[in-house]
C-alpha cells in the first residue's frame, strides 16, 4: 500500500488575510511542522495529507500582496516557486476581495506555475448576494478554480481532487497569458527573445517573466542575468525599451505594468461578478465608525490594552501559583529521594528551580498570546497600529512596533519574536533594542520587594506605576536615538491593509497560540536549562571548606542545646553557611569584583551578587538576596527579607530607587538575550545591545541615586 503513494509537492500562495492559514490547517490537520525559512526569521509551515493514493505535501508560503523583490516574504514565496518548482501552486483568493487578491494571481500566471485557485470565503460571497461566474474566471486566469470555505472545511476535497488533476496533467483549462499595452509587449518580446538565447537560463526561469521583471527594474532578476554572456545583448534591448517608455523619472514603467495588471483584473471582475452594486455599509464600516473614531479611537485602544493586561495577569495568577507549588513540591521530592550529593544539588537547585522559573510564566505567556492572537485574527491589531502610528512615527518607529512592545510587558522572549512583523531591518533592530525597557513580568517580584521595604505605604502603587512609565520613557528616547543615528533613514513605509472584521474560530486561535507558546518553551526552555546550571555552578563553587568546618563545630555545640532551641539553631547555622558559601563562590567573588563599578550607584557586593544571579532570570534576584542575607529558603514570603533590608543602615531610599531603576533597565535574562541574538542574527548587535542596556541602566541609576541623595540630605 505504502509504495503506491504518489508524492505531490504543493505550495499555498495568497494575500495576507485571505484565509490561507485556515485552509492550510484544514488541509493538513495535525500533520504539520513549523520551522524557519533558511537565513530569515520568517516562519515556515509544512504539512501533508494522504488522499486517494497520493501523499500531498503543502508548504504554506508567506502571505504577500505581490511578488516584487522588496520584502523577505515576497522573495521567499517567489524563489520557492521558481527554485523548488512545486508540482502545484494553490493560489488562495479571498472571494470577497477579488480585485486586490487577483493581482497576485496575475503575477503567479507570469511565473507560469501550474496553478489551482481556491476561491475562498465563498459562503460570504454568496451571503452578500454576489454571483461569480467561476467558469469564465477559470478561462481568464487559465487555471482550475475551486470554491472553498476554509473555516468550515468546505470544498477541501474538491480542491485536493483538482490538485491531483493538475498534477496528472488532466487539465481542462488552458493557461492564459496577460497582455500589456503594445509598447510594453514589444519590449517584452524583444527582451525575452534575447534571453531565450541562453538555454540554461530560459530553462530555469520563464523568459517572459524575466523580461517583465527587468522592465520593472527588479534587482534580483538583474543579479541573475548580469553575470551571463547573454547580458551583453539583453542590456542593450532593456535600455532601449526603458528609454523609449520611461516618461516620468523613476519608475513610470513599473506603474504602467502594474496598471495593466490591475486593468486585466478589473476587467475580469467586471465580466464575472454579478450582484447588487452601490454603496452598502458593511459591518466593518459600523464597527470602525466607533473603534477608530476620531475621539474614541485612542480611549478604545487604551481600554483594550488595559483589558488585555487584566486578562493576562489576573487570569494567570492562579495557574502560576499551581505551577510554582508543583515545582517546589517536585524539587522537595527529588531532594528527599536522592542521596545528599552534588548531583542532587544540581538537579533540585539548578535544573528544577531554573526550568520552573520559565514554566511558571507559561500561563501568562499563553494568555497574552491568546489575547494577541484574538485581536490579530479579528482585525483589530491593524487598527491599533493605525491609531498609534503617529506616536511611533515621531519616535522613528512603525505603528506595528507597538505589538512587540506590548508583548514585552509580559516577556521579552516572545516580544523579540513578534518583531518579525517588522519588515525593515532598522525598524526591527531598533524595536528589539528597546523592548527590554518595557518592564517584563519577571521583574515585578523585585519591585515589590524593594518598594515594600523602602517606599511609604501610600506611595507604593504610584512608585510601581512610575517604574513602568519610566521604562516606557527610556524606550521611547532610545528608539528616537537609534533611529536618528545608527538606523537613520531606514524605515518601512506605512501602507497597510485594514482587514474586515471577522470572528475567528476557537480552533484556529488555539492552534496559533499553541504554535507561539511552543516556540517560547523550546527557545526559553533550552537556554534557561543551560543558564540555570551555569548559575548554580557559579553559586556553589569553589566550596567553602573552612566555612563547612566551622559549621560542623557549631553544629556539635548546638547538639547540646535543649530540643526546642536546637532545630532553630541548626536552621540559623545552615542559612549562615549558605550565605558564606555564596560569598565564597564564583558568584560571590564576581559580586565583590564589580563592587567598585556599582558603588557609585549605592550598591554593595551583596546586591552585586543578586544582580549577577538575576541574569539567569529576573525573579532570581529576590531568592539570591534571600540566600545572601542568610535567610535560607524564603519561598514566596518576602516579608522577612523586607525587614532585613529595612534594618540594614547601608540601604536607604536613594539606594532603593537606584536599584529599582537598575533592575528595570539592565540586561534581561540570558534566555531573552539568546533569543535576541538569534533574531538579530549578528553578534555585533547582541554585544551592542548588552553594552547599551548596561550603560543606560548605570547612567540612569547613577543620576537617580545622586539626585535623590541631594534632595534627601
Amino acid at each position, binding site marked *: 500500500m505504502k509504495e503506491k503513494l504518489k508524492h505531490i509537492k504543493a505550495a499555498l500562495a495568497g494575500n495576507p488575510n485571505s484565509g490561507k492559514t485556515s485552509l492550510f490547517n484544514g488541509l493538513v490537520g495535525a500533520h504539520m511542522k513549523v520551522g524557519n525559512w533558511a537565513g530569515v526569521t520568517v516562519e515556515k509551515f509544512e504539512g501533508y495529507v494522504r488522499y486517494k493514493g497520493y501523499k500531498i505535501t503543502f508548504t504554506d508560503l508567506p502571505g504577500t*500582496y505581490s511578488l516584487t523583490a522588496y520584502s523577505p516574504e515576497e522573495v521567499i514565496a517567489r524563489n520557492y516557486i521558481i527554485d523548488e518548482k512545486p508540482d502545484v501552486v494553490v493560489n488562495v483568493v479571498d472571494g470577497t476581495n477579488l480585485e486586490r487578491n487577483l493581482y497576485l494571481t496575475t503575477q503567479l500566471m507570469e511565473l507560469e506555475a501550474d496553478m489551482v485557485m481556491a476561491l475562498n470565503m465563498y459562503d460570504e460571497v454568496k451571503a452578500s448576494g454576489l454571483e461569480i461566474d467561476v467558469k469564465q474566471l477559470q478561462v481568464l486566469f487559465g487555471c482550475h478554480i475551486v470554491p472553498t470555505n476554509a473555516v468550515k472545511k468546505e470544498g477541501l476535497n474538491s480542491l485536493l481532487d483538482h490538485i491531483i488533476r493538475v498534477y496528472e496533467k488532466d487539465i481542462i483549462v488552458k493557461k492564459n497569458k496577460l497582455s500589456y499595452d503594445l509598447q510594453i509587449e514589444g519590449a517584452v518580446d524583444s527582451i525575452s527573445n534575447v534571453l531565450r538565447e541562453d538555454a540554461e537560463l530560459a530553462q530555469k526561469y520563464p523568459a517572459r517573466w524575466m523580461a517583465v521583471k527587468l522592465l520593472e527594474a527588479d534587482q534580483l532578476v538583474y543579479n541573475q542575468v548580469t553575470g551571463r554572456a547573454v547580458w551583453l545583448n539583453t542590456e542593450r534591448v532593456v535600455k532601449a525599451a526603458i528609454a523609449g517608455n520611461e516618461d516620468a523619472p523613476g519608475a513610470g514603467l513599473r506603474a504602467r505594468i502594474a496598471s495593466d495588471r490591475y486593468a486585466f483584473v478589473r476587467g475580469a471582475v467586471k465580466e464575472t461578478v454579478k450582484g447588487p452594486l452601490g454603496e452598502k455599509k458593511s459591518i466593518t464600516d459600523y464597527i470602525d465608525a466607533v473603534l477608530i473614531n476620531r475621539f474614541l479611537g485612542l480611549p478604545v485602544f487604551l481600554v483594550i490594552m488595559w483589558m488585555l493586561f487584566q486578562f493576562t495577569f489576573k487570569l494567570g495568577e492562579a495557574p502560576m501559583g499551581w505551577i510554582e507549588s508543583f515545582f517546589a513540591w517536585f524539587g522537595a521530592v527529588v531532594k528527599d529521594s536522592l542521596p545528599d550529593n552534588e548531583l542532587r544539588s544540581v538537579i533540585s537547585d539548578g535544573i528544577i528551580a531554573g526550568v520552573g522559573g520559565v514554566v511558571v510564566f507559561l500561563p501568562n505567556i499563553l494568555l497574552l498570546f491568546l489575547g494577541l492572537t484574538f485581536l490579530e485574527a479579528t482585525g483589530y491589531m491593524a487598527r491599533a497600529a493605525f491609531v498609534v502610528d503617529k506616536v511611533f512615527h515621531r519616535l522613528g518607529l512603525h505603528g506595528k512596533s507597538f505589538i512587540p512592545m506590548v508583548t514585552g510587558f509580559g516577556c521579552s522572549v516572545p516580544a523579540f519574536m513578534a518583531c518579525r512583523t517588522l519588515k525593515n531591518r532598522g525598524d526591527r533592530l531598533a524595536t528589539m533594542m528597546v523592548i527590554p525597557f518595557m518592564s517584563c513580568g519577571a521583574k515585578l517580584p523585585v519591585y515589590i520587594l524593594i518598594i515594600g521595604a523602602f517606599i511609604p505605604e501610600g506611595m507604593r502603587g504610584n512608585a510601581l506605576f512610575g517604574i513602568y512609565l519610566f521604562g516606557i520613557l527610556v524606550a521611547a528616547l532610545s528608539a528616537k536615538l537609534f533611529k536618528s543615528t545608527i538606523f537613520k533613514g531606514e524605515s518601512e*513605509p506605512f*501602507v497597510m491593509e485594514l482587514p474586515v472584521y471577522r470572528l475567528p474560530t476557537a480552533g484556529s486561535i488555539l492552534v496559533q497560540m499553541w504554535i507561539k507558546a511552543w516556540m517560547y518553551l523550546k527557545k526559553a526552555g533550552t537556554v534557561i536549562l543551560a543558564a540555570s546550571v551555569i548559575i548554580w555552578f557559579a553559586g556553589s563553587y569553589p566550596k567553602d571548606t573552612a566555612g563547612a568546618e566551622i559549621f560542623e563545630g557549631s553544629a556539635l555545640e548546638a547538639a547540646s542545646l535543649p530540643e526546642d532551641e536546637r532545630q532553630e539553631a541548626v536552621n540559623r547555622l545552615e542559612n549562615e553557611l549558605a550565605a558564606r558559601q555564596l560569598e565564597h563562590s564564583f558568584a560571590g567573588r564576581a559580586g565583590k569584583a564589580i563592587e567598585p563599578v556599582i558603588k557609585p550607584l549605592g550598591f554593595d557586593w551583596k546586591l552585586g551578587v543578586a544582580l549577577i544571579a538575576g541574569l539567569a532570570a529576573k525573579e532570581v534576584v529576590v531568592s539570591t538576596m534571600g540566600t545572601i542575607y542568610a535567610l535560607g529558603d524564603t519561598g514566596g514570603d518576602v516579608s522577612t527579607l523586607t525587614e532585613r533590608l529595612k534594618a540594614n543602615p547601608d540601604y536607604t531610599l536613594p539606594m532603593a530607587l537606584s536599584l529599582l531603576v537598575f533592575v528595570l533597565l539592565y540586561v534581561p535574562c540570558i534566555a531573552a538575550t539568546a533569543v535576541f541574538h538569534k533574531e538579530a542574527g549578528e553578534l555585533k548587535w547582541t554585544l551592542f545591545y548588552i553594552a547599551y542596556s548596561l550603560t543606560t541602566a548605570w547612567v540612569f541609576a547613577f543620576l537617580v541615586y545622586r539626585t535623590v541623595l541631594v534632595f534627601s540630605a
Partner: protein
Amino acid sequence: MKLAELQRGDKAVVTSVDSSGETGMRLIDMGLVAGAHLKFLRKAPLGDPIEIQIRGFLLALRKEEAARISVEVTGHMGDGVPMGKRERKGRMKGRRHEGKA
C-alpha cells in the same frame, strides 16, 4: 490635488503616482495606480495616517506616503453625513474650486 488633502467622504480618482523606490512599489502593489477610484474614509485620531477605500478594501497610509499620489475629486459620499455637517461640506467644496483656479 494630493491624496492627503482630501476631506472625509471625498471620492477621487488617482491621476498619477510617484512609483519610485520601495514605497512606490508598495503603493502600486496595493492598487494605487493611475485610474484607480478611491474614497477618503478618515484620518487616524492623531491626524495621521489616513484611511481610504480602494478596490473594495480598506487601506491605511501615512500622509508622507499619500503625498506621492495625485488625485482628482469626482464626488462626495452623501449618505450618512449628519445634517449639521452639510454647511461645512459646502464650504469645503468652495475651497476646492479656489484651489483649482
